[in-house]
């Protein structure tokens, strides 16, 4: 990886016009890749306080968290998990297609984009249902049964909305990037010589999926 002159399976350094401070297209690619991985490391730490707060309050208010979690619909969560796993697969296919210079990249990116949109639609129905039932964060919690039985479930819903909300923002951001990449792919910008943006978007999208893989059992299943 560190030697810019080595050629790996991703393709030979070629005609792609790389930025002036790199020695080759491959040098540019490996640099971008390292930068992207570092970005994902900081993303993990960005989410970490929410996870710490979740485990701390779960240990403190186990009963209330249990009753809070029962209010979530695990079937909706499972559906969204399947949708995101599918989108991860199509994203991986899009990356491979771009490396091979295949036209199918646009198709795969489009499916990924639609999966992301589908995820948000399911989330929208979940949110409106929770709002309707008064299952809201902190002071806004108005659900009478839950307030009587488990007053600290308000914190569960604070964390639920913060965690899925932050994840949702990442999904929306990802959709923007995927749309941009799709447009560039449509113009035929990517091929075996240059596919850096596609691969970076792929890394990001897999991370967004992975966060959900942790959120789903923590919020919907445990308890």
């Amino acid at each position, binding site marked *: 990886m560190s030697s810019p002159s080595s050629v790996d399976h991703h393709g030979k350094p070629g005609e792609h016009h790389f930025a002036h401070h790199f020695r080759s297209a491959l040098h540019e690619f490996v640099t971008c890749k*390292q930068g992207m991985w570092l970005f994902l490391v900081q993303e993990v730490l960005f989410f970490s306080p929410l996870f710490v707060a979740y485990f701390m309050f779960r240990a403190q208010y186990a009963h209330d968290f249990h009753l809070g979690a029962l209010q979530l619909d695990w079937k909706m969560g499972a559906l969204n998990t399947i949708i995101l796993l599918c989108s991860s697969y199509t994203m991986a296919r899009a990356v491979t297609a771009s490396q091979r210079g295949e036209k199918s990249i646009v198709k795969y990116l489009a499916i990924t984009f639609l999966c992301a949109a589908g995820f948000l639609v399911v989330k929208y129905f979940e949110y409106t249902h929770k709002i309707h039932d008064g299952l809201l*964060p902190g002071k806004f919690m108005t659900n009478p049964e839950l307030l009587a039985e488990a007053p600290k479930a308000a914190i569960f819903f604070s964390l639920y909305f*913060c965690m899925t909300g932050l994840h949702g923002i990442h999904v929306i951001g990802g959709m923007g990037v995927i749309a941009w990449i799709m447009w560039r792919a449509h113009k035929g910008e990517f091929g075996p010589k240059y596919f850096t943006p596609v691969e970076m978007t792929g890394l990001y999208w897999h991370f967004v999926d992975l966060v959900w893989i942790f959120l789903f059992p923590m919020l919907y299943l445990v308890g």
Partner: protein
Amino acid sequence: MSSTTAVAGKNYLTDPKGIGSWIYTLDHKRIGLLYLVSVLFFFLVGGIFALLVRLELWSPGQTVMSADTYNKAFTYHGTMMVFMVIIPMIPAAIGNFVLPLMLGAKDVAFPRLNLLSYYIFMAGALLGVGTLFFKGVDTGWTFYTPYSTKTGSAAAMMVMAAFVMGFSSILTGLNFITTIHKLRAPGQGWTKLPLMCWALYATSLLQLLATPVLALTLCLMAMERVFNIGIFDPALGGDPVLFQHFFWFYSHPAVYIMVLPAMGVINEVIPVFSQKPIFGYKAMALAVFGIAAVAFIVWGHHMFTSGQSATAGFIFSLITMFVAIPTGIKMFSWLATMYKGTLRFQAPMLYAYAFLFVFLIGGLTGVVLATMAADIHLHDTYFVVAHFHYVMVGGTLMGFMAGIHYWWPKMFGKMYSEGAAKLAWFFVFMGFNVTFFPQFIAGSQGMPRRYYDYVAEFTIWNQVSTVGSWMIGVGFVISAIYLMASLVGGRKASDNPWQALGLEWQTSSPPPTENFLVDPVVTHGPYDYDKVAA
């Protein structure tokens, strides 16, 4: 290697021309200068707040401002100095300029991201300064809950400012790590990397790993303020101490974000002005990573009195003392580097001496505060204020001054007046000690920090301290005058005025836009003063 001569009149300052070429510049040197100008402006504002705070403390009771105004003045002094000055001061301003030059690279790895980081920083900074027009902020720079979620001031806007500036810090760290990994000149193996670059690497790691935690914590605090989510609010079952844990998980490493780059500068200055190889190169490189690693597991020493268990307190106390080991390695290695060297007493070296002196005091009082039993007495007194000013101002600011004097000829191609620099150094160094040493005494006698008022017994120490703050002010005014004068009428600097071996001195002063006319190849270590004639 011989130095390259510049094409007449063509350098990064003059080519290309026009205001647009600065606003949209992707050149790391220009971005470094943009940061430098911005940071120095905020330093001026933060400094004025500091002078106001000291003026108010001239005598017990009200002197020049009301108690509420005083709370805001020290909050702005702290917040601006931490987030807008000391954190970006060396990495973003000086680091941006020198890092690619020291690596023999043409730019940082991601130049566009670099420019974006600058504008994110400015957006956050302006948001922070903007709070002045919305009732101000009176929480102190730590934003402790539950006060920060209840106060009627613009605390939410201020934490959003810190949140935004955090992303600038994260992205700069990401950029620097990748640059150091991928853009070193041929021949520059890991053991030939200048120690400034090692220091920037460790700093960048801290920026990358710690800042996101603070970012999200501040988000939660703002959510708490706006939506009452209850995570930090005990009335809803939340835990205000959790905020302190999150806050210090970032803000303790942040202390090393501030001081490690200063150590990097000192690493460069001392060998050059001793004309000797640095003592213990590998130990020095490892020591910054030792400090960075320990930085993540000592945050609890800020919370000895916050109700954590005695066991936790004991462990945090013990681990904190481990920080003294890598720091001690660095102190002794600097002394050993100077031993029997050919010492030159020019401005950068004088500031390096000042660094060693004040950082020693700051570091040793840090061990005192790390001792839990002693800290119970000293917690939230002026002893703590004096300690962290000795480390943050003594460490970072002296390091910054050493760096700016050392690289000034490279940045602008001009020499400043050495005599004026020595005079300013005297005021800054003496003024610093006159300001903060009395605070150790007042603090150990029990004077609490952040209070608007104090008992009459402490008057003398406060007045000495206030006089000291004026001396520091005079020192920086002199510095500003001779540095700006050098731009207009300064003697032209040679390519390598200090006879240094670093790559940045092998290009012209100021460097061309592409940094090096011929791509450099590294054949010797950065401190081989015994083997190579500079």
